[in-house]
């Protein structure tokens, strides 16, 4: 019993990878609302917009992504509510 060491938290085996904003990295300046396939990267399975803390998008582009997703939804390119989008 005594020789067994137990940790409360799992040991950090893998190093955390730093998140980055894909728009800044790729130099994209405009988020197209017509490109539904691209916008799907920023949605979860229910079609909700993923938060910045998960995608790593900068605030500036998160706003643009949000706006583009909403436009795409209006044009029925993306669903408002769904299941199993991916």
């Amino acid at each position, binding site marked *: 019993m005594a020789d067994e060491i137990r940790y409360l938290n799992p040991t950090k085996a893998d190093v955390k990878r730093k998140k980055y904003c894909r728009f800044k990295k790729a130099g994209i*300046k*405009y988020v197209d*609302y*017509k490109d539904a396939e691209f916008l799907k990267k920023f949605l979860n399975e229910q079609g909700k917009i993923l938060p910045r803390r998960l995608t790593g998008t900068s605030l500036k582009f998160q706003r643009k992504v949000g706006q583009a997703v909403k436009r795409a939804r209006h*044009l029925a*390119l*993306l*669903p*408002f509510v769904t299941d199993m989008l991916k």
Partner: protein
Amino acid sequence: MIFLFLRSNYLLIAKYKSVDYKKNILKIICNSQILITFAAQNFNNYINNQILEQKIMLNHYETVFIVTPVLSESQVKETVKKFRNFVTENGGEVVYEDDWGLKKLAYPIQKKSTGFYHLIEFKAEGEFIKKLEIQYRRDERIIRFLTFKMDKHAVEYAEKRRSNKTN
């Protein structure tokens, strides 16, 4: 005389009139082309010319609309033609057009699950958008529309995409 000839742009001229009293220059502009230039005394008042020309900058817009799928192919074309003509007749200039064809909607609109998508990119005055959207609302064949004012990045992106497509 002037007003007769440009009845649709009556408001525009009225706006400029306040400028020309001071500057002695009046330009009547339609479709971003200068039709008449009036100069009373200061003919080569270059700066004033510039001010006038900046004011008539047309905005770049993009509009997508969905036509109801119950129509036949020719009826859809007619609808598209109606809106294309509506843009050009009201001092707009069609830059690009794209027909996306019959597409499945992500959710039903007016109990329909498909629709004909059509995109028109055009240059026009801001006032025109109101008129266009009224036309959309009045037309039963249009089930959804979106008009988008393009900034310089959007224009750049659209041009790039077009050139990629043709190549």
